[in-house]
C-alpha cells in the first residue's frame, strides 16, 4: 500500500516540477511566429513548385506577409485564391500575372525529318549532346520528355515525339523551361490565344527541308496584323505585349502555310490527329 502512495507522490511531484519548467520555457524562449504567414501558408496550394521565384510555399508566404511580393505572384493559385489571400492580409492582390508555358515547336515525327538511328539514352539533354539528337532540326523539341518529367503538375504530354502543354493544367511555374536543353519552351501571358510553334532561326529553305511544320518567314501574319506579329529573319513571333491578340478564328483566317502559327486548341488537335491518315 505504501508503495502505491510513494509512487503516486513521486509522479505527482515530477509532473509538477516538469510542468512548471515547461511553463517557464514557453514563456522565455518563445519563437515569435507571424500568424499572418501561417494564414497565407494555409491558403497557398502547397505545391512547392518555385514558380514564384521563392524557395517554396513557406518562403513565398513570408515574402507576401512582409509585403515584399504581391499574392498574385503565385502561379498555381486561381484568381479566387489570390483574392482570398489579399483579403486576409488586406493588401492589393496585384495585376494579372498568370503565365503559361508553350513548346514553340511543331516538329512531331510526321513533320520533321527523323534520322535513321538513335539508340541512346531517352533523355533530351543526353541526346542533345550527340549531334543534336534524333531529329533533323537542331533548334526544335527533341521529344524525349525531360520537360514532362520536370513538370510537377503533369501538364506536359509527349505526343508523336513532340512535347505539348495542356493549358488547363499548366500553371506557368517555369520548371520545364529550365529542364529543356534547347530552350524551346517559353513562358507567355496566360490569356494569349495563339503562338508561333517554331524556334528555328535558320533560312526558310533549310528549315523546310528539315521540317514541314516550321515557320518559313513568309510574313503573312505580319501583313494581316502588323502590331501583333513581328517577323525577324525567317521566324515570326507573337508580340505578347500587344493590346489585343487575334482570336482562334482570326488565326484560322490568316491561313499560315505551314501551320506554325496556330491557336492552342488548333495546335493540340492537329498533334493528336497527326499521322492518322498516313499510317493506313
Amino acid at each position, binding site marked *: 500500500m505504501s508503495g502505491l502512495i510513494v509512487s503516486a507522490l513521486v509522479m505527482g511531484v515530477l509532473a509538477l516540477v516538469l510542468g512548471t519548467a515547461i511553463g517557464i520555457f514557453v514563456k522565455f524562449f518563445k519563437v515569435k511566429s507571424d500568424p499572418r504567414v501561417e494564414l497565407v501558408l494555409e491558403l497557398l496550394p502547397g505545391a512547392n513548385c518555385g514558380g514564384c521565384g521563392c524557395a517554396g510555399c513557406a518562403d513565398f508566404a513570408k515574402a507576401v506577409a512582409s509585403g515584399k511580393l504581391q499574392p498574385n505572384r503565385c502561379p498555381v493559385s486561381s484568381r479566387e485564391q489570390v483574392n482570398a489571400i489579399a483579403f486576409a492580409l488586406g493588401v492589393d492582390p496585384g495585376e494579372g500575372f498568370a503565365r503559361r508555358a508553350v513548346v514553340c515547336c511543331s516538329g512531331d515525327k510526321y513533320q520533321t525529318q527523323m534520322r535513321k*538511328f538513335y539508340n541512346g539514352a531517352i*533523355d533530351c539533354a*543526353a541526346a542533345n549532346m550527340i*549531334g*543534336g539528337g534524333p531529329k533533323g532540326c537542331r533548334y526544335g523539341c527533341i521529344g524525349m520528355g525531360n520537360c514532362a518529367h520536370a513538370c510537377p503538375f503533369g501538364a506536359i504530354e509527349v505526343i508523336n515525339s513532340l512535347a505539348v502543354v495542356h493549358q488547363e493544367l499548366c500553371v506557368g511555374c517555369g520548371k520545364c523551361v529550365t529542364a529543356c536543353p534547347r530552350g524551346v519552351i517559353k513562358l507567355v501571358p496566360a490569356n494569349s490565344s495563339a503562338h508561333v510553334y517554331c524556334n528555328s532561326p535558320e533560312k526558310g529553305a533549310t528549315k523546310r527541308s528539315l521540317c514541314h511544320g516550321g515557320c518559313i518567314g513568309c510574313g503573312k501574319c505580319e501583313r494581316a496584323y502588323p502590331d501583333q506579329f513581328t517577323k525577324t529573319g525567317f521566324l515570326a513571333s507573337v508580340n505578347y505585349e500587344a493590346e489585343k491578340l487575334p482570336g482562334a478564328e482570326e488565326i484560322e483566317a490568316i491561313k499560315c502555310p505551314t501551320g506554325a502559327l496556330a491557336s492552342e486548341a488548333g495546335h493540340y488537335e492537329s498533334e493528336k490527329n497527326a499521322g492518322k491518315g498516313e499510317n493506313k
Partner: protein
Amino acid sequence: MNKSSRKVMSFTGGIHPVSAGKKLTNTHAVHTAPLLERYTVLVQENAGKAPEVIIKPGDKVLKYQLLAKASGFVSANLHSPTSGEVAGIIEVPGPMGVPALAIDIRSDGEDRETDPFEPIPDWRSAEPQLLLDRVADAGLVGMGGASFPTRVKLTIPPGKKVDTLILNGAECEPYLSADHRLMLESPCRVLEGAAIIGHILGIDKIYIGIEINKHDAIAELERFSEDYGIKIIPLQVQYPQGSEKQLIHAIVNRVVPPGGLPADVGCVVQNVGTAAAVSDAVTLGIPLVERIVTVSGKVLKDPGNWKLRIGTPVIKAIEFCGGVTDEPSKLILGGPMMGFAQNSYEVPISKNTSGVLLFSRRRALNYRSGSCIRCGRCVQGCPMGLCTCLLATAIEGGRIDLAEQNHVMDCLECGSCAYVCPAHRPLVQTLRLAKAEIRRQRAAAAKANSGK
C-alpha cells in the same frame, strides 16, 4: 631476344572487342588520294580555341599556305591542303553533328606549293625551343583523336619533371589500321619523330607501345629502333590499351592520379601519327595537311587505307573505295568504340580523323535498352575501376552529386562498359551527361568565386 619469351604488358580492366574488322584493311598498303576539285577545311581542327582566319574569300592560296593563325596557347595553325582560290567561309556539317565553319577551297588543279618552312635536318644540334616553335608553326595536333595541340602537350608545366616519352602505337580500336600501316610503311619517320620529341623534352627514355596483333610492325620498328635508342614494347591485345593512362600503367607501371595529367607521373604520351608529322615538320619543313585514314566497313567495295588531305569530304573518301555495295545505315568518324556517328556524308576529314567507318543496317545493332541487372560486367571492364552501373543509376535518378563523389569525372568514355552491358544500357552517354553537368556547375562556381 627471343620473342616468345618476352613479357607482354597490359593494364587492369578493359575488354576484348571483336577484332575481325582489322583484317579488312590491315594488309592494304596506303594509297595516296587523287587531287580533288574542292576541299572544305574546318577552321577549328584543334581542341581549345579556334584559330583566327587570315584569308578572305577570293584570295588565291598555295599548298601549305597559312589559312588560320593560332589565336592563343591552346590553338593550332591551319594550312591549305592545295593551291587554288578561297571560294568562301561557309558552314558545313561538322564532325560533332552541329554545323561548323569551314574554308571552302576550289583547287586550281596545279597543286603549287608555297615555300614550306626551312628544313632542320641537323635537329640533334638544334635548340629544343626552335623545334618546339616548328611544331607549333606546322599546326600539329594530337592525331590519335583528341586533336589537342601538340605544342601544349610538349610544354611541360613549371614544377613538373618528365623522364619518359611513350609513343602510342597500340591502335586498340577495332577496324582501324591507319597507325599500323604507318608504322609498317614508314618506320623511320615514326622513330625519328619520337627522337625529335625526346630531344625537345630532353628525355632519352623513349618507348613505343604496340599491341602484339601488329607483330609485323613491331618487327619492322625493331629493325631500326636501336639506332634511335628507342625501346619497342609489345602490349596485350586489349581495349583501351591505347588510352594515355592505361598505356602509362602498362609500360612504366605508374598510375596517373584522378584528374591529373601524364606529366604528374613524369610521362608524355604521343600518337605515332603525331610523331611522323613531327618528323615531317622538322626534317622536311612540311606543315600538317594530310593524314592516313582507314576507310573501312563491310558495305564498302574496296576498303583500304588512304592518305587524305584535310578538308576532303567523307563522301569522296567513300568514292575512292569504289562506293558501297549495300545501303549503309551508320557512318562513324574515328573508331567504332569512341568515334562519333555522323548525319551527313559531307563532313570533312580533319587532322584527328583516324577512320571513316560504314556499317550496314544489319551490322549496326539496333537495340532497346533495359534495366540494369547488376551483373557487374561493366565494373570488370572499366579500365578506370569505376562502378559504372551504379554511377549511371545515380545519374538517372538525378543524383549527379553522388556520381561526382564516386569519380565520374575519371571516365574516359572508352565505351567498354556499354559494349559489355547485356541490357544494352547507354552507360557512356549517361556518364557523359553527368560530366557535362558537373563541368557546367564547376564553371559556374568558379565564375561566382571570381566575382567575389
